[in-house]
């Protein structure tokens, strides 16, 4: 039994979960800042970014060391590869939260507009995806990750609806165009967070099952491809 190696894998897992917590918190704060037009929360998101970036570097370093020093195989190799990719996705989730926060900081300078878009509902769905993707990683359960993949279509639809209604608003009420553009960009940021959650879920499936399910294609162990059927 390679006890020290297993301890280092546990350390990698713990650090990634800490990083996941930071990224999840950043998105929640940014969305809450939008809802409450809360500048203090925006600043918290901006200040938290350096912590996420530092965590990303540390995780990459540890993963790199483990690959070089321990020459992992099979499930351990898949785990470390998945961690490096999830790490990168989480860092980008943090970037999207920063983009949202910066957008909110612009918005609060403008008069409040009553826009026909439910960012709160969309952010709730996106946060749930990130949380479940991280849960699937904690539990090592591909079924949980599969559920995240199926939620992505719901968020995509929300984004499409937001685009349609916000463009209509811009045409009908040119005076709130800037606010509508900000909301539209936030919807796009949220949709990208959902994409990262999907990537994380795909990486969990790769780690647990050894199957590549990216780009709606399932590759079995023999390298044969079959289309993934999404539930929505």
């Amino acid at each position, binding site marked *: 039994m*390679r006890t020290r190696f297993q301890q280092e894998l546990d350390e990698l897992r713990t650090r990634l979960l800490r990083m996941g917590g930071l990224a999840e918190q950043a998105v929640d704060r940014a969305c809450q800042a939008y809802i409450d037009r809360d500048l203090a929360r925006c600043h918290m998101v901006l200040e938290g970014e350096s912590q996420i970036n530092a965590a990303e570097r540390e995780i990459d370093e540890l993963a790199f060391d483990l690959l070089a020093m321990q020459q992992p195989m099979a*499930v351990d190799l898949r785990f470390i590869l998945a961690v490096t990719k999830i790490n990168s996705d989480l860092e980008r989730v943090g970037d999207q939260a920063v983009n949202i926060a910066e957008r909110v900081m612009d918005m609060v300078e403008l008069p409040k507009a009553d826009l026909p878009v439910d960012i709160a509902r969309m952010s709730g769905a996106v946060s749930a995806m990130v949380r479940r993707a991280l849960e699937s990683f904690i539990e090592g359960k591909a079924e949980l990750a599969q559920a995240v993949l199926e939620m992505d279509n719901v968020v995509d639809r929300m984004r499409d609806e937001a685009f349609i209604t916000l463009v209509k608003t811009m045409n009908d009420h040119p005076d709130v165009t800037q606010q509508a553009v900000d909301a539209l960009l936030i919807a796009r940021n949220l949709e990208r967070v959902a994409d990262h959650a999907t990537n994380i879920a795909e990486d969990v499936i790769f780690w647990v099952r050894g199957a590549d399910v990216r780009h709606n294609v399932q590759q079995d162990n023999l390298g044969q491809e079959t289309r993934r059927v999404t539930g929505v």
Partner: protein
Amino acid sequence: MGVGIKVEHLDAWFGKTQSLHDISMDIQGSHATAIIGPSGCGKSTFVRCLNRMHETIPDARVSGRVRMGELEVYNGTAAVQIRRRIGMVFQKPNPFPTMSIYDNVAAGLRLNGFHDRRRLDEVVERSLKLSALWEEVKDNLRKKSGASLSGGQQQRLCIARALAVEPQVLLMDEPCSALDPISTGKIEELIFQLKEKFTIVIVTHNMQQASRVAEFTGFFLMGRLVEFDRTEKIFTTPSDKRTEDYITGRFG
């Protein structure tokens, strides 16, 4: 070209102790197949059954069927005929210490009654080139003894000696375990080139080595073949939990 080896329901015993249980395996011709597993799992016994070396041990016996191409290894074929077609390289390089480099390579041919000097020269040169040793020894073929070479060179000399009798299969039982990383790299590179012409079966404890040189890998445990598949499958997504536990160091 190397021929395929078909092993069917192979059992092997040392006295009353059964060391191999019902092994069936299709070893592809002109490819390298790695045999891995913990100490005592039967991997060396397995390869020694392929060229009938196992039966040279008192009280050892074998049952089952092994076919090398069209040749039946156990039914009706003389052991010497089998061994002529299957070269073997061992863990520790074992050149004949009192013989020159040239004589080491030519030994197998001479033993088979082959004495044409010009033809011997050709075979020695070709074998040493195949084993990637020619450039290092060509000026001292008859002056230097095999034992005067470095460990890595000695191992390549033993490979040249095995290749000189033009085998179809090369069995390698931990050929690099006594070598430094540079010599190991040369042998691995050699295996990579040789497998175009010969069927190679390599027993190794070094899983990185198996993954570097072999297209197929078999995992043995307690005398049984647990899993046999393409090497990338074995080392990335093995089907059997025991294989995964072994290659990830969770036991053994």
